C-alpha cells in the first residue's frame, strides 16, 4: 500500500496509531512536577518500580507508559547530557537542548515510522536553575509534541487527564510552597489524573468532564490507591552541596503530606 497515494487511508492509519498508543498509556500512573521554595519536587505512585530518574546535575525525568520505552528515552537523554557536559561544559547542558534536539525528534520519528512500534510513553522533564529560569518543565508527548511550563507540569495517561490535573494547580503560588504543601498538591493532582485514566469513557466535552471532576473525592481516590501503591518522590534541591542537585526523598520527608490520605 502506498500511503502517500491514499490520503484518506493515511489519515486513518495515523488515527488508528494514536488510538492504539493512547490505549496503551492511559492506565499508567501519572507523574507530577511542582516547584517549591527549595527547588523542584517530582512525585508519582507506583508498585515499587522506579519511575523518577536523574538525567544530569540539575535535570530529572519521569514518564508514563511502557517501561522499556521510557528507559530508551531516559538513556538517550542521559547520553546527550553527558556528551554535551564533557565536550562543552556543565553549564551548556540545558533541558531545552535535550527536548528540542533529542527527545522531541526521536519521539516524532518513532511515531511517524509506521512499520515500527512507536514510543508508548509520555515524559516530563524538570530543570532547576537553568538558563531558562529557576523552575522549568517540559513535557513530551508520544508523537514528539513538546510543551514548556514554569512552576508546575504534569503528564497523565491522556490529554484530558493533564487538563484535570492542571486544575489542581490553579491559583497556586508554586515558588512559595513548602515541601509538604508541594507534596500535598502533587498527590491531589496525581489522584485527578488517575481518576481520568481509569474512566471507562472520557467525555469529549471538557465542561462535562470538569463537572464530573468537581464531584470526585480526591482523598478517597488516594486512600484507595495507597493500599496498593507507594509514593515515589525526588527533589532537585537548591540547598544540596556540590553540583549534583538530584536527591530521593525518604519516607519521613513525605510522611507529613501523606498522613491525611492514609486509610484510617
Amino acid at each position, binding site marked *: 500500500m502506498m500511503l502517500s497515494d491514499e490520503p484518506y487511508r493515511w489519515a486513518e492509519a495515523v488515527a488508528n496509531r494514536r488510538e492504539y498508543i493512547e490505549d496503551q498509556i492511559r492506565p499508567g500512573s501519572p507523574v507530577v512536577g511542582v516547584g517549591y521554595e527549595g527547588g523542584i519536587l517530582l512525585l508519582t505512585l507506583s508498585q515499587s518500580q522506579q519511575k523518577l530518574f536523574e538525567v544530569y546535575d540539575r535535570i530529572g525525568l519521569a514518564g508514563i507508559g511502557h517501561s522499556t520505552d521510557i528507559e530508551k528515552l531516559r*538513556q538517550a537523554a*542521559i547520553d546527550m547530557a553527558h*556528551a554535551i557536559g564533557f565536550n562543552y561544559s556543565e553549564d551548556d547542558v540545558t533541558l531545552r537542548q535535550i527536548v528540542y534536539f533529542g527527545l522531541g525528534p526521536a519521539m516524532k520519528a518513532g511515531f511517524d515510522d509506521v512499520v515500527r512500534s512507536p514510543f508508548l510513553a509520555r515524559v516530563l522533564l524538570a530543570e532547576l536553575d537553568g538558563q531558562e529560569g529557576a523552575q522549568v518543565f517540559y513535557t513530551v508527548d508520544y508523537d514528539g509534541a513538546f510543551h514548556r511550563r514554569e512552576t508546575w507540569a504534569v503528564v497523565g495517561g491522556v490529554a484530558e487527564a493533564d487538563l484535570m490535573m492542571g486544575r489542581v494547580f490553579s491559583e497556586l503560588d508554586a515558588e512559595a510552597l513548602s515541601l509538604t504543601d508541594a507534596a500535598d498538591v502533587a498527590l491531589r493532582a496525581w489522584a485527578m489524573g488517575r481518576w481520568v485514566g481509569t474512566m471507562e469513557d472520557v467525555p469529549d466535552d471538557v465542561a462535562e468532564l470538569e463537572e464530573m471532576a468537581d464531584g470526585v473525592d480526591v482523598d478517597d481516590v488516594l486512600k484507595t490507591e495507597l493500599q496498593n501503591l507507594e509514593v515515589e518522590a525526588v527533589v532537585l534541591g537548591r540547598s544540596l552541596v*556540590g553540583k549534583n542537585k538530584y536527591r530521593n526523598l525518604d519516607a519521613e520527608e513525605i510522611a507529613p503530606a501523606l498522613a491525611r490520605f492514609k486509610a484510617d
Partner: protein
Amino acid sequence: MMVSGGDFVDLLRQTGYRFPGEQLGDAAGDRALPFEPTEGTTILAFQYADGVLVAGDRRATAGNMVLYDRADKVIDLDAYSVMAISGSPAVAFEIARILEHAFQYYRRRLLQEMSLPAKLRRLSLLIKDNLPLAMQGIGAVIPVFATYDRRDGRGKIYFYDALGAQFESADFTTTGSGSPAIRGAMYYLNRWSGRRFAEMDRETAIGHALQLLDTASEYDSATGRYERSADIFPSVKTITASGLAEIETEELRRLYAQYVDGEEAGRA
C-alpha cells in the same frame, strides 16, 4: 549482543572524541621536543585517624620556568574520591574530567554506583591509553587515587606507574619531582617519630602535610612553597566517612604558622 551501556569513554568515541594519546600516533617520531612540556610536582597522601589526607603544592613548571603558582593538582572526582596528579597537567586534567563524567554517567545510566574496583580499573585504562604521549616524554601522568571505601569503612590510597599498573599503599605515598626529597622523611616519621600517620588527628595530619611539602620545596625547584606575597597555600583535602573536604585557607594559615613557622616546627 546486549550491552548495558554506561561506558562513558564509548559514548565519547561515538561523538568523535579521541583521547590525546590516541591522536599522537607517530607524528612526533624521534625528534626532539620543540617545547618544554609543562609538569606538575609534589603530591603526597597518607592514612590518618579519620581517613585519608591528600596534599599537593600549587606549582606547574615548564623546564626551569615557573609557569603557574596556583595549579590545583588534587582534583575532586566525586563526593568520596580525588585524583592527585604529578606529571603533565594537560593530560591529567583531561583524565580527571573523563573520570568525573564516567562515574556520574555510569551511576545515572545503570542506576547503581560504580564499584571501587571498577573506578580503579577505569583510571588504569586511561593511563594505558595515554602511553603514546608518555613514551614521547611529554604527557606522562602518575596519579594518586584516594577514596573512602564505605563498605570497608576505611580510607584507601592507590598509586600508579606510567603504564597504568595500580598499587594500594598501606600507609603513605608520594609522587612527583619533589617526592625523593620527602619519601625518606615520610618513612622516618611513620616508623620512628613515635606517632604513626594513622594515629594522627586531623590537625596534626594537616600540619605534617604542610611540613612535608615545605621540605619538598626546599630541595626541588619545581615544587612551590607557601607564597607569602600572594598568600597561596598548598591544596590539602581530607576524605572521611562523611565525604571529601577541602581545608580552607584560614585553617591552613593557622596550621602553617603553628607547624611550619611556629611552636610545632621544631618537633617531629
